[in-house]
């Protein structure tokens, strides 16, 4: 069923009793051309583009819980392409362009809101670094603006401009960046993939990968054995554990990142604001709650919850940037488990096993990458060839010495 103004009115007049489920609940077939492990944003978008753009229709997505139960339902919904390195910027800009056409493409309201992302700077050195980043963006054809202090004060009056240690001197603004509704992204891709014939199988956990003569034949699951031609892993957070089933040695650690939502307020924050003095970022959801997060908890973790000390640290950073935050109540906090890669950049590549494909290492930037990740991964699976914008994101880059180290922090995941 396509959504339109007409379908809204017709269903409203019939008491909203005739809406159909957005995707089927099929039983697994004995064999698929492609099985995707992980029904998160990246797994679903991969399935969608495989079926729609590359004509691979006999596809299954296996999700161990319900759709949207992982990181796609546990993030701060920011989309942006303000990266610096040549390996990253074209990729995230490709993603940004897909975001801009996503609602029309999916016929689904993902509530993309291009409200602008502004990254604050607090010193002359940091200003220079942001000028450089802005120039790097322009070189890839992406607009960036440096906003000076006086102009910023008019745009965002409630920041703490005169903090003794981190006075706010200005910011780097990408106007096209913003937020999208994370659940709607998962549901929209699931519905789109389903309409193109993809089987989305929920509550189906992969427990083993069956191989014969070094070739992957299928997966053992809680719903029995399912055969496949190609197996694609998109199990962020648990990639190491799924990879272990095929003896993959991966440059990953799993870390937990916390995020928070406050009580609903009247519209007060117009942009996504990133605090350059720490790692704090905040935006206001369409319901009115302030959504914010900061750094990872620091040590590797598979628990979908964080520790209180980090929560306190996040609040401190937030109040340092916006003093008025101290009077707002936090309603909810949650933690998501992410793959932290050794250089802070993702991995989309084939593995040493011919028909096994890998999409992992999104650190805490996976949400904004959802469309491009799916598109490039589908391209790789369908054509056995890396998409041009994902060429720098291959698995062997560490061995070759071409790490994409956006933060310049070296091979230590908890510093990215």
């Amino acid at each position, binding site marked *: 069923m396509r959504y339109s103004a007409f379908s809204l009115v017709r269903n409203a007049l019939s008491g909203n009793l005739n809406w159909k489920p957005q995707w089927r609940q099929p039983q697994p077939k004995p064999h698929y051309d492609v099985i995707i492990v992980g029904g998160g944003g990246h797994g679903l978008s991969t399935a969608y583009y495989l079926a729609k753009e590359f004509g691979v229709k006999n596809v299954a997505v296996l999700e161990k819980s319900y759709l949207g139960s992982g990181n796609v339902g546990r993030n701060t919904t920011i989309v942006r392409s303000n990266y610096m390195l040549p390996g990253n910027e074209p990729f995230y800009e490709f993603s940004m362009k897909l975001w801009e056409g996503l609602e029309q493409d999916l016929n689904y309201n993902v509530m993309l809101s291009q409200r602008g992302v502004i990254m604050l700077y607090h010193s002359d050195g940091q200003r220079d670094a942001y000028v450089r980043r802005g120039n790097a963006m322009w070189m890839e054809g992406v607009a960036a603006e440096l906003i000076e202090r006086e102009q910023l004060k008019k745009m965002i009056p409630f920041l703490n401009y005169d903090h003794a240690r981190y006075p706010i001197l200005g910011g780097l603004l990408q106007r096209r960046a913003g937020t999208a509704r994370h659940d709607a992204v998962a549901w929209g891709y699931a519905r789109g993939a389903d309409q193109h014939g993809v089987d989305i199988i929920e509550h189906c956990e992969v427990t083993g990968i069956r191989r014969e003569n070094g070739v992957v034949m299928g997966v053992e699951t809680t719903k029995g054995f399912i055969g496949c031609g190609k197996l694609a892993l998109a199990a962020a957070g648990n990639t*190491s*554990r799924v990879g272990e089933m095929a003896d993959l040695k991966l*440059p990953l650690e799993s870390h937990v990142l916390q995020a928070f939502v406050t009580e609903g307020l009247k519209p007060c924050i117009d942009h996504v604001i990133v605090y350059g003095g720490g790692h704090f970022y905040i935006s206001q959801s369409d319901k009115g709650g302030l959504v914010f997060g900061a750094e990872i908890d620091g*040590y590797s*973790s598979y*628990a979908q919850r964080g520790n209180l000390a980090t929560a306190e640290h996040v609040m401190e950073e937030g109040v340092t940037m916006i003093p008025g935050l101290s009077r707002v109540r936090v309603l909810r906090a949650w933690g998501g488990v992410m793959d932290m890669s050794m250089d802070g950049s993702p991995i989309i590549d084939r593995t040493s096993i011919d028909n096994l494909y890998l999409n992992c290492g999104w650190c805490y930037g996976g949400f904004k990458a959802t469309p491009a990740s799916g598109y490039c991964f589908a391209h790789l699976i369908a054509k056995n060839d890396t998409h041009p914008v994902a060429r720098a994101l291959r698995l062997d880059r*560490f061995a070759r010495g071409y790490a994409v180290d956006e933060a310049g922090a070296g*091979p*230590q995941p908890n510093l990215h």
Partner: protein
Amino acid sequence: MASLITCPHCGVRPKEEFTIRGDASRGRPEPMDTDEAWHDYVYVRANPRGRTLEHWHHVAGCRRFLVVERDTATHAVYSVVDAAEFVRRAEQ
């Protein structure tokens, strides 16, 4: 909870006093070892769900490197020993 670490020298301390260097179970290769051995040492991680050994550096305390054994799923800490003591025990 891994928010609190009992340092063998300083007692119970918040984890903010520590810098974490990750996996402590891997041995450093010899200088002239193969590229593959060095690649594995620098980049590849076992990343277990469950018990793991990690180096925690007590930067804001005694400045000793510690080996912390904890569970990555429950955050329970089983043991904390000085890294030098850890090596001594391994060699015995």
